[in-house]
């Protein structure tokens, strides 16, 4: 029983981190109509930036986190200006996606150049474990679950419940019509990039003590992709549920198969595509104008 609880907490925590990545992915697909293959790099940069402030510049953790969040937003805006804006009117519709692939390469090399190739090991936000009745739960995983819950709730509320979110949604669905009724689409677009980078960056900060700070962090985006497909492409709610499901499948699979657990995770992805291509919790993505 205690192992089941341990694996569940672990899977839930990782699933929620994947959900942060996946939500940003869905938001950007809605906004620009193209997959962002640098989404994992957003998470990686989040880890590097917070490590830089807290461990290299030796700032107090709370100050480092606040500055990190501001930096994440700035990186999101810079990303839009550098890798989306120049190609937004390209005749080849996949140009934006190819640009994100190039950005991914650039970010990894830039991280190695700026921070060095040595693996960096930040301490857990709260070291130690909660021990109850023979059960040992690391505080770090509990903190991940708590922080991710509030971030997911915040983003979900913003986009699904608040007027500003609806403005962004409107701008992404029909840019021309949105501009006609006075919605500043360039600002809503920039806000989407900033939010996408910020939530991924927070994910990077949270997983850094577990996964360490290195460029391989970008690989987490594959699981976010899987979660988005399993949940239902285009749906924020679907992305969240799908990613949590992927996290749990991944964690439980270690009980049966450790070395090839990716086989189980991506097997679930393929199975979903075969039996329910629209995903389990999905709604069809709105067509871009």
């Amino acid at each position, binding site marked *: 029983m*205690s*192992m089941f609880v*341990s*694996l569940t907490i*672990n*899977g839930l925590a*990782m699933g929620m981190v994947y959900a942060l990545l996946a939500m940003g992915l869905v938001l950007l697909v809605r906004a620009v109509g193209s997959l962002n293959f640098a989404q994992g790099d957003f998470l990686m940069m989040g880890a590097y930036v917070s490590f830089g402030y807290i461990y290299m510049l030796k700032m107090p953790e709370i100050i480092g986190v606040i500055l990190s969040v501001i930096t994440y937003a700035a990186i999101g805006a810079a990303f839009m200006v550098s890798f989306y804006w120049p190609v937004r009117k390209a005749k080849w519709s996949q140009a934006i996606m190819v640009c994100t692939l190039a950005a991914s390469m650039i970010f990894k090399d830039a991280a*190695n150049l700026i921070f*060095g*190739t*040595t*693996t960096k*090991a930040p*301490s857990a936000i709260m070291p*130690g*474990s909660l*021990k109850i009745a023979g059960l*040992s739960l*690391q505080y770090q*995983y509990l903190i991940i679950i708590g922080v991710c819950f509030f971030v997911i709730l915040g983003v979900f509320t913003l986009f699904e419940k608040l007027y500003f979110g609806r403005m962004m949604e409107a701008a992404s669905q029909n840019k021309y019509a949105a501009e006609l009724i006075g919605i500043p689409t360039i600002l809503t677009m920039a806000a989407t990039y900033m939010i996408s980078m910020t939530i991924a960056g927070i994910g990077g900060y949270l997983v850094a003590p*577990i*996964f*360490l700070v*290195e*460029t*391989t962090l970008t*690989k987490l985006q594959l699981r976010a992709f899987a979660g988005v497909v399993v949940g239902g492409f285009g749906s924020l709610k679907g992305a969240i549920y799908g990613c949590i499901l992927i996290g749990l499948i991944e*964690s439980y699979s*270690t*009980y049966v198969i*450790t*070395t*090839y657990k*990716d086989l189980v995770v991506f097997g679930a992805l393929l199975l979903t595509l075969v039996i329910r291509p629209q995903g389990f919790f999905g709604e069809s993505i709105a067509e871009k104008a």
Partner: protein
Amino acid sequence: MSYCWGFPHAVPGGEKAEEPVLKEESQEQEKEEAGGQEEEATAADTSNPVKIGVLTWYTGTRADLGTYICDAADLAVKEINEAGGVLGGRAVEIVYEDMGADQQTTINGAQKMVNTEGISCILGPFTSTFDLAISDVIKTSQIPTLAMGSATTLLELDNPYYHLPRMTDEQVGAMAAQYVVETLGMTKPAVIYMNNDSGVSFKDVFVTTLKDKYGYEPAIEIGYDNETEKNYAPYAAQIMNSEADGVVATGNQSDAGLVMRALYDAGCDLPKYARNSAYVSSVALEIAGEAANGWYATADWSTLPLEEQGKAFEAAYEAYAGREANLNAACTYDAIYLLVDAIERAGNDDTEAINEAMKAMDYQGVVTHYVADGKNSWAQYLLLVQTQDVQPVVVGRVDRVK
């Protein structure tokens, strides 16, 4: 033992030059620094150098480890040349090539290396998969090479130009089984291993020896993909829920640190043993912190060696490179001396003659005693290290199982 041809191997040393210094100036400085010491060695002749190829990492995620290899090779060559070079005064020159991040870059680097004029022997990759990748290149070129990986499959290659100075995973596996049963008293260890050639060959031999020699079986066997896995908490939970009376592990530096941390966080107080240096490396100790305390490891190298040669090398390396040596540095340093020893005994820099000399290797290095017997790798013992106060303390040595 055969450092009898005049190299001050037992007392390594020398400062890394910040800027190039004219040869004459350098020699004058050294004479002044010697301050009346007896018989100054004549510097080697650089006009007709003996070339040694070194495959290292300049790029990719292991670029930082590559700097350890380069510093150690440069230090060894500096000492050798200052002591008069090889073959009656010829200087040794290192030719570096990059292995990058993947097998293809390594193959390209090896191809370029073997086509470089005058390469007499090569120091190969520290990664077994890369050694396997370039085996055909080495075999075709007929240039004797030290394969620095430890996978047992390297011994099974039909490649007469490959020589293995480090102990193979198979040998370490047998040694580990003997140690954890007879010394640490484990009867049902949990085995956690990286799922690459090196990790699996160790695990297979360890488990087989455990069963065949002692009649025990592991409580649980956990393999993981060391290229992608970072989250070890689920594995720690499974070990804690098994009936294991100890933990036996093998991995690379980063995953070693994470495994130690995960087990510590899960409240594991079982005896813990790792079969390789990764678990006592500075990277792993930095990641694991106090979670590393109490772990035993059989290691090629520790920064606090027991023997005088090891201590002298560590001091020389720290003075030269400005940081502590690691496994790659210590093994590279030994490897350069091994190659130069073979060249000296061959009497010339002909590749076939050097290859034959390699087959008769008998050399005491800073890491271990290297003896070639025609079928096994050369290393005769490993250090037994225990992490105490986040420091790797050498508590003895473990001889190879005969």
